[in-house]
Each structure stands twice: as structure tokens, then as C-alpha cells.
């Protein structure tokens, strides 16, 4: 039987594209025919919910009833994947709360697959954030995401410094989200539909739309490249891990350097 999986998307800085990555993941999971539910922690009105209203609930992750709503149902829901878009500044408190409720321990025991997408900012502070975050991770799959969609330049990242940080987190895997043509990103945002729906020239609800063919082409090309990154890191295999196939805790994993843009 497939283990339930929790995918956390976060980063302590705002404006680094957490929700964009969450949206690409929801499209990817749908394409892979994975049953998924999503939680948006941007209360009271989440951005993720605007794009994926049928899949998404808005929750306040600081409130115990909402924590119960998410984590107490991980095993009982029809969805095998629970995706949580953690709003800016809440990544460390969320990980802290997960440790306190025994979630990290459950992941360590192999009862749950825990995947963290850490969306990095361009500053050196992001590297410190990596170390802080790693302290909570246990046996989670840890993906460090360089997101170029909003024209970020990782100019402050000295290679030697970066490598020194990365070495402290064995098993961390880098993912690069390429840049999307600005006007295409804006149009999808205005349309308030999933990327895949925009490419298919549909509105929310399935009615035909009249989006620009050029912009749809750019979004398709970009989404394919992004999904290729998820394929490269074997995301589907990770999420479809079965309870009997869990690796022994503490098994050494290879260090994969973050991909260069």
C-alpha cells in the first residue's frame, strides 16, 4: 500500500515564488494521476486556493484545530498526497510544530513520506535558513529550489560558501525552476487558473477561453522544463513509496549539487 505523503512548500522570505512552485506541483501531480489535496496557509484568502479552488482549503497553521484538520487526516483521506503551501515566515514555526506533534518522528519511522520544497531567496540569509530548516528534517526528502520565475538572480551566492552549506545537509537535492516570460506569468495570474488549464485554453470550470497562443506556448514550454526537473529528482517514485519498501533510517544518501542556472 502507498504511504501517505506530505509535501511542504515553504521559505522564510516572501516573494520567492512558493505558491508558484506549489501550483506547478499540483499540475504535475494531476498529470501523474496522483490523488492530492492542498492546504493554503495564507489566511484568510489564500493565493493557491484562487488557482486550485477544488483541491485547496485555506487553513491557519498556527491554530491547533487546523493542524488537526491537516495531520490527523493524513491517513484517512482519499488523497495519497497532502500538499501544504506555507506562507512566508512560517516555515520554521511549522517545522517546529510538526516536530512537537510527532509528525517528524512518524516520517522517520517510515509511516509517512515527508517531502520539503524549500524555496530559496537570492541572499546569503537563505543559506542560513537552510541550516535552520535542516535541523528539523529527520528523514525527509529535502529539495532546495532556486526559483528563477520572478527574475531572481542568485548573485550573492558564492560557490564555495554555497557548497559548504550544502555539505552540511547530506541528501539535499537542488531543483531549478526556469524563468517564465513575464507577460505569460501575468496572464496566467489574471486568468486565475492552473498552468495546465491555461495551456489547454480553458477557464476555471472548463469553459473555452481565448488566451494568446504565444503565451500558452511559453507556459507549456516552461512547465515542461519544470516538470522535467521533478522527473529528474524522481518525485513520483518518492511519493508512491510503499510501506514495505521504506529504506532503513540513517542510510547514507548521495549529495547532489544544486543545478546551476
Amino acid at each position: 500500500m502507498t504511504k501517505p505523503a506530505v509535501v511542504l512548500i515553504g521559505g522564510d522570505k516572501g516573494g520567492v515564488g512558493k505558491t508558484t512552485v506549489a501550483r506547478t506541483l499540483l499540475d504535475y501531480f494531476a498529470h501523474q494521476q496522483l490523488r492530492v489535496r492542498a492546504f493554503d496557509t495564507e489566511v484568510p484568502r489564500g493565493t493557491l486556493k484562487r488557482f486550485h479552488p477544488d483541491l485547496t482549503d485555506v487553513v491557519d497553521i498556527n491554530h491547533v484545530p487546523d493542524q488537526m484538520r491537516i495531520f490527523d487526516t493524513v491517513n484517512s483521506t482519499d488523497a495519497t498526497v497532502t500538499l501544504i503551501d506555507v506562507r512566508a515566515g512560517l516555515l520554521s514555526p511549522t517545522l517546529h510544530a510538526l516536530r512537537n506533534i510527532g509528525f517528524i518522528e512518524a516520517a522517520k519511522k517510515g509511516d509517512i513520506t515527508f517531502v520539503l520544497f524549500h524555496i530559496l531567496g537570492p541572499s546569503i540569509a537563505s543559506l542560513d535558513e537552510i541550516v535552520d530548516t535542516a535541523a528539523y528534517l529527520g528523514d525527509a526528502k529535502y529539495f532546495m529550489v532556486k526559483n528563477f520565475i520572478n527574475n531572481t538572480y542568485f548573485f550573492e551566492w558564492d560557490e564555495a560558501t554555497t557548497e559548504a552549506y550544502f555539505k552540511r545537509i547530506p541528501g539535499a537535492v537542488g531543483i531549478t525552476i526556469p524563468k517564465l516570460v513575464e507577460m505569460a506569468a501575468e496572464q496566467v495570474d489574471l486568468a486565475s487558473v492552473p498552468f495546465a488549464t491555461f495551456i489547454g485554453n480553458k477557464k476555471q470550470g472548463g469553459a473555452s477561453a481565448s488566451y494568446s497562443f504565444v503565451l500558452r506556448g511559453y507556459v507549456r514550454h516552461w512547465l515542461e522544463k519544470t516538470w522535467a526537473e521533478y522527473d529528474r529528482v524522481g518525485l513520483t517514485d518518492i511519493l508512491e513509496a510503499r510501506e514495505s519498501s521504506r529504506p532503513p533510517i540513517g542510510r547514507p544518501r548521495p549529495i547532489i549539487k544544486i543545478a546551476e542556472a
Partner: protein
Amino acid sequence: MTGKTTPLYVVCSPCRRVGKTLVSRLLAEFYVINNRPVAAFDLADEGPQLADYLPGITTIADIADTRGQMAFFDRLIAADMGARIIDLSHRVFKNFFTVVDEISFFEEARRRSIEPLILFIIDPDPKSAKAYGILRHQISQASLLPVRNQVKTTETPHARPNANITPTSLDIPLLNFPLKAVIDRQSFSFSRPWGTSPADLPVLLKEELSRWVERVFFQFHTLEVLLGCA
């Protein structure tokens, strides 16, 4: 949409002054003379350009930014405008094919019964052979046909870089100098040569021009048949 397949010609070369606009003009007037719908797009940035010769059917386009690309490609693919001819400047060559690849333009065109044909004007410049090789390797959703333009060419036949790797080609035959000067005039029209040629042009030259145009137009007709657009 009529459901009938219509051709989309991309007349191109990575080099300048090889006769792209001449081939585009001939193609456009091939449709005009047969009273068939045609729309030409001028992506040239130096004159005299297609819009100078055929202002009535030519739209000037600029694909340097996303807004311009939307205005150009969205229109090109959406409207039922008959044959489409793109006169592509050597400066836009790389950007055009990059965008086309990124947005899967040719694939979408074929889905909409628009059959793309790249008319690549060969030239002795090494970058021409290189670009032709790249296109031949990368473009799978459009036909690619070399064009030997003897009106412009200066090389000897054995110096042609692609002569031995291209099984078929479109040939624009040699034209003698006085006639070349005539067709270069912006007032000249291939679809009504008698009305636009100088009155004092000797009959022999007029007949030669007529035969030259017929020879080119016959090849266009053959191309249409091969594309399934006739």
C-alpha cells in the same frame, strides 16, 4: 476555418541581400494573379522591403518582444487568411526560430490545417550552410526546401555549400541585368508585368520576363501540390 489546408511560407536566410524579398514578392503575386487569398508579413528591417512592393497585402511585424510576438503569431494562426508568406530578415532569423520552437508554433499550425514550408535561400556564406544544417536537424514539424536564387547569386555552381545534400530545391532562374533592374522597381508587379514594365522595353525582353515568371510560378504550383494545398 474552411477545413482546407493552406500553406505558410517562411522565406529566410541568415544572410542579407540574398533575395528573400524577391522570393516573397513572387510567392505573394502567384496568389494575387490567381485571385486567391494571401497575406504577407514583413519581418524585414531594411528597405526596400516587402511592404514597399505590396503594401495592400503586407503587414509589417516586429517580434522583438512578447507583445509583438503575440500580435504576430496569434494573428498568423487564428485568422483564416489563405496562404501566408513571411519575409524574414536575417537579423530576426535566430529569434524567429527560437520563438517558433518554444511555443511549438509549427506543430499548432499543422493542427489547424496550416502547412508550413521553410524556403531557405542558400548562399556561399558558411553561416548559411550551418544554419541550414541546424534547421534540418531541429525542425521536424515543417518542410524545409533550399532555394537557389540565381538572380542574386554570385558563386559558381561547385561552390554551393548545400548542392550535394539537397535532393530538391526551388530554383529562381538567372535574369539578365536590364530585366533585373525592371523587377527591382517598387512599382513593378509580377501579376501584371505588361502594365508595369517600361513602355520601351523590347518585346524580346518582355517575353523573356514572362517566361521567367512562368517558370517560377510553375514551381510554386508544384510545391502547393506537394504540400496538399493546391
